[in-house]
């Protein structure tokens, strides 16, 4: 199957300026792709966090790959604030489209359905809404006294990028109960997947496995990447490398510290690849 390739070949598909969507920390982030994208020096990404960014977003921003970020939040969780994200926003060196978790889910659902927008309650009176000239509040269009409601334009990412615990050689991808990845893959024009393991068994053959799978219809490329979420964890499979994560959170507080960390981080990858 022609979608089965290498991580670097996947990263090469992502052109400068692409709208790239990545899941939240506990939802199977492909750090293997983040490394490959940084190595290849991709520029001007519009990064959509679904709906919250963490290490991946912070690294891509620190490495200068991102010109716009849309997110409900970016945080390193128990390791503190996201330092390169914070610095970039405070310096005004990236554009931020403020959002809130259900708004990102709703806009992706609109993309999934092929409708131009999705209504969402809440939001009215928030400065998030005030900052978004693409969101629109209309009086109840049904005329039934439901009051004003916000309409959010559909989002159709060029690429969804994530790391699955399992995929098959036909490009079907097992995502277990991380079903936020399903509307994400549907709404995106192409999904580029790294997988912990690629099996010869067809995931569609069993009802049990199919129930937690995304069919290859949506998958634009697949590569095997052992420990491809590290230093993040792959929930249910392996924990985060807390030591590395903590080191990052500390070093990345300065531009220089970030560069030093990334030199070693990307170098390790090259060393591991050469093994």
């Amino acid at each position, binding site marked *: 199957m022609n979608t089965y390739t290498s991580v670097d070949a996947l990263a090469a598909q992502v052109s400068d300026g692409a709208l790239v969507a990545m899941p*939240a920390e506990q*939802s199977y982030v492909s750090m293997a792709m983040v490394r490959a994208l940084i190595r290849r020096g991709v520029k001007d990404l519009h990064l959509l966090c*679904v*709906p*919250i960014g963490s290490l991946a977003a912070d690294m891509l921003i620190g490495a200068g790959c991102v010109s716009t970020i849309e*997110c*409900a*939040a*970016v*945080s390193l*969780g*128990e390791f503190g*604030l*996201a330092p390169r*994200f*914070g610095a970039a*926003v*405070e310096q*005004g060196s990236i554009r*931020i489209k*403020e*959002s*809130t*978790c*259900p*708004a990102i*889910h*709703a806009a992706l*659902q609109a993309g999934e359905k092929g409708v131009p927008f999705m209504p*969402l*309650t*809440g*939001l*009215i*009176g*928030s*400065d*998030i*809404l005030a*900052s978004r000239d693409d969101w629109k509040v209309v009086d109840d269009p049904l005329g039934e006294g*439901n*009051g*004003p*409601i916000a309409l959010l334009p559909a989002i159709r990412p060029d690429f969804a990028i994530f790391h699955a615990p399992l995929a098959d050689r036909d490009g079907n991808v097992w995502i277990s*109960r*991380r*079903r*936020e*990845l*399903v*509307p994400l893959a549907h709404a995106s024009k192409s999904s580029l997947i790294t997988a912990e393991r690629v099996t010869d068994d067809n995931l569609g053959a069993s009802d049990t496995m199919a129930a937690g799978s995304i069919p290859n219809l949506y998958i634009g490329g697949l590569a095997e990447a052992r420990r491809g979420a590290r230093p993040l964890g792959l*929930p*249910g499979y392996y924990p985060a490398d807390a030591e590395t994560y903590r080191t990052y959170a500390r070093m990345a507080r300065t531009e220089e510290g970030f560069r030093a960390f990334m030199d070693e981080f990307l170098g390790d990858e090259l060393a591991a690849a050469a093994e």
Partner: protein
Amino acid sequence: MSYNTEELMIAVIARLLDDPEVRHVAVGAASPIPGSAALLTRHLTGGRLRASIIHGLANNPFTDGGREVFDCAGQGRIDVFFLGGVQIDGEANINLVGTGDYPAVDKRFPGSFGSAYMYFVVPKVILFRPEHTRRVFVPKVDFISAPGTSEPGVYRPGGPKALVTELCLMSFDAAKKRFRLESVHPGHTVEEVLDNTGFDFDIPENVPMTPEPEPDRLDLLRTSIGAQIAEIYPDFVARVFAPKTEDAA
């Protein structure tokens, strides 16, 4: 029975949850104090209260992806949720985005998470912010992640009902757009609350002291409930409920 501030705040929240109208409390990520109160109250109500903890899998019922907890709230199936804020003002507006003149913020914080939605649709939102200072409780927030109140006509079945800090418990009256001091925690005073709050609020003539944690509840927290909480927040349990082990020794 001795207790620490975390245990006191858990007890305060647990009392807010023990309400016949509260059938289901949901707790967001990285919220061990609300999470502990939720699991404690589930136990105390014999399971009448459903507690969903959106962190790990142990008490996380959801199987339809990240949007399910929001959809569930939109359906009216979540009665209590917790929100905090880098800043909170006297009209219960909350700011999770940054301080300074947005978008030129002085200091950027993570962002609004689900607040701009949950604050509208969950009937009883409990604002939980341990740090009680004028840095947090400001006259007016620099950025409204989610507004405390809405104009008439805006669909808003939910909103803030209470504020829990390390100093006190306040309630919020949406019609008056004002907080009211309900009780001051043991060892603290009304003056201390006034000194550390940057907005006006109502103060009744007699402000009661917040009741101390019930000994049987402390016991539960430090034993069976603590064990459940440790599955989700091991570091928290080790730090907060550790004195018990020392006491016992």
